[in-house]
């Protein structure tokens, strides 16, 4: 994540735009901002951005509808929809129409940061095509769907396995509860109860019992998967 990575913000609310800009700059990326859809689409086509943060109810139209034009213009940017249309149905619609992520307003700055990081990493990350994911003494075998800590087998449920692979894919980054619910359970609504905590807690205890404190709580934000690679 260097200074060479540019992010485009298409947002008509000045205050929201400023908040997004602050997060993006904190990540060390450079920012362009447009406050109408037409200007945004034009900028997206003329400049190679890494990520576009796109609003929906903009002067000039709906960001979701404009995604096709941005893609047709040759942009390979990852698109994060940031919108007040935040019901489950809106989110599913946005994702189905090609958005890479969808964050409803109001959003917490931490949530936005976690999602931007995940998107920025997506381009550079090694794809998990190799069978073995090793983080020091923690090993995940994709084909066999097994987890080993210090060569000892850790019994995990199928859901827990999906959970740990999602963590592994975002190793070192804060992962929010909402991200887990969306990506591991494919649920796009807020269940109100922190059901996710119970699952993460169980997986975490299993790993800790086996001797790996890989999952830690990021206070107020979510969880972070940070296995000590040098341990042993």
């Amino acid at each position, binding site marked *: 994540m260097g200074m060479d990575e540019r992010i485009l913000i298409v947002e008509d609310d000045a205050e929201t735009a400023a908040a997004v800009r602050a997060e993006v700059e904190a990540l060390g990326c450079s920012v362009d901002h447009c406050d109408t859809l037409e200007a945004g689409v034009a900028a997206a086509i003329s400049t190679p951005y890494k990520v576009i943060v796109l609003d929906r109810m903009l002067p000039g139209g709906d960001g979701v509808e404009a995604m096709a034009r941005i893609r047709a213009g040759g942009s390979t940017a990852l698109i994060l929809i940031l919108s007040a249309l935040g019901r489950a149905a809106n989110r599913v619609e946005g994702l189905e129409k090609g958005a890479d992520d969808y964050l409803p307003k109001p959003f917490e700055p931490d949530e936005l940061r976690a999602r931007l990081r995940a998107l920025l990493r997506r381009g550079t990350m090694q794809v998990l095509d190799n069978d073995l994911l090793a983080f020091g003494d923690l090993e995940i075998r994709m084909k066999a769907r097994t987890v080993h800590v210090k060569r000892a087998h850790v019994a995990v449920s199928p859901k827990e396995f999906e959970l740990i692979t999602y963590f592994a894919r975002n190793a070192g980054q804060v992962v929010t509860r909402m991200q887990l619910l969306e990506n591991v359970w494919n649920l796009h*609504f807020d269940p109100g109860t922190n059901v996710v905590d119970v699952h993460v807690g169980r997986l975490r205890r299993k790993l800790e019992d086996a001797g790996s404190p890989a999952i830690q709580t990021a206070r107020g934000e979510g969880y972070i998967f940070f296995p000590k690679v040098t341990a042993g």
Partner: protein
Amino acid sequence: MTLARPPIRLFLAARATLRLAALMALAVTLLSLGAMMLQYRLVETRMMEAQQALLTADLGGFAALYEQRRIIALRQAIEYRAAAATGDEMLLLQDRNGTLLAGTLTEWPVGLAPVGADFAAADAFEFTSLGKRWLAVARELPGGFPLLVARSLQPVDDTLAALRRGILGLLAACLGAGGLFGWLSARSVMGRIGRINDLADRVAEGELDARLPGERSADEFGLLETHVHAMLDRIQNLNRATHRLSDTIAHELRTPLNRMLQKLSKIEGQEALTSELKAEMRQAIRMFDSLLDISRAEADQGTGGGLVPVDLSAVASEVWELYEPLAEDKGLIAEARVTPGLRVLGDHNLIAQVLSNLIDNAIKYCSAGDRVMLDLSEQGDRHLMRVADTGPGLPEDLKAEAFERFTRAERDRGIKGHGLGLALVRAIAARHGARLAMPATEGGFALEIHWPRLQHSD
């Protein structure tokens, strides 16, 4: 998802119009039958009167001759008449020994008794002889001379028979024409009603923008079609307005909330307070999301738009799996029996929301040792989903309004919630054409959702 109803309904409509047409044809036929019967009677009476008049004239002639020269003149006249007989008259004069004096017959017809000795025709009687009907007068003239004067009724019978044949033919033609006309008009009415019925079926299946093609005709059917179209336009506009309004509400409320949240995040040193405020905001957003979801689901009710084949069993298992550890951690006994592979036409997220609401409620209201159960099985043409628990159940006075928005029991004020869960469940169930039932339980709460099964052809 084609219903078996329309053809049956069309058929019934056709029968209703056909019945009406048949009734009208029958009425017209009966009226004409009455008119023809009246005419028949009139013709019969007039012809009988004519025969009677002929008989009277004959007898009058014979009476005059008898006045002049008695039997001799009568005999001559009858001989003369018998020679020129046309077959339409019967004349016979005998002497006191029964010997033929003159006549068209040789023998006195059996069973006829002469009565009186005058030449009046008033007491003429009918009898049958030689295969014909006759109007006759039989006398015994002074001195023992039996006299028979009769007029054949054959012309009357022939005319009446022809008339009857004519009437029968006319009746048949009347019925046939009435039936044909009725059938043709019924068919045209049926066709036009059928068009409107088809339209209604398409709209009921979710095609809100369906309309009848072509021009509206100027008659009452055209007017009916115009009214139906106006009605559909209005429904469609209301539906659009609901969709637009929910988007606007979301935008107008979430944008200021967003600014508040951004500012809240800048406050430092009061972590506990800000996180409490954030939780409150999250709760408020969940509440109006639920309200918008409810009105959207209600607006989309009955429209199949946006629904796709969904593995109901898989969704049920997933949501159950999400909540099971929560229930276990709370010391509840969690049991799920899910028949695999049951499919419905639905929205994955909405179905998950229904289950999440119900299971979350069950866990929330139960305490350690209680049971929480999820069953999904096939039952006839429906999939039965049952979420039940052995918790405190619904207070009796709340049962009637349990599915209304913001219904909460007084005793549950301490438990987090906004009273929209069951209202959302009902709206989403209705959106999927599913039926809700609250079966009586010995304790605790149970809710059944009967989902329409996905047809294999879909």
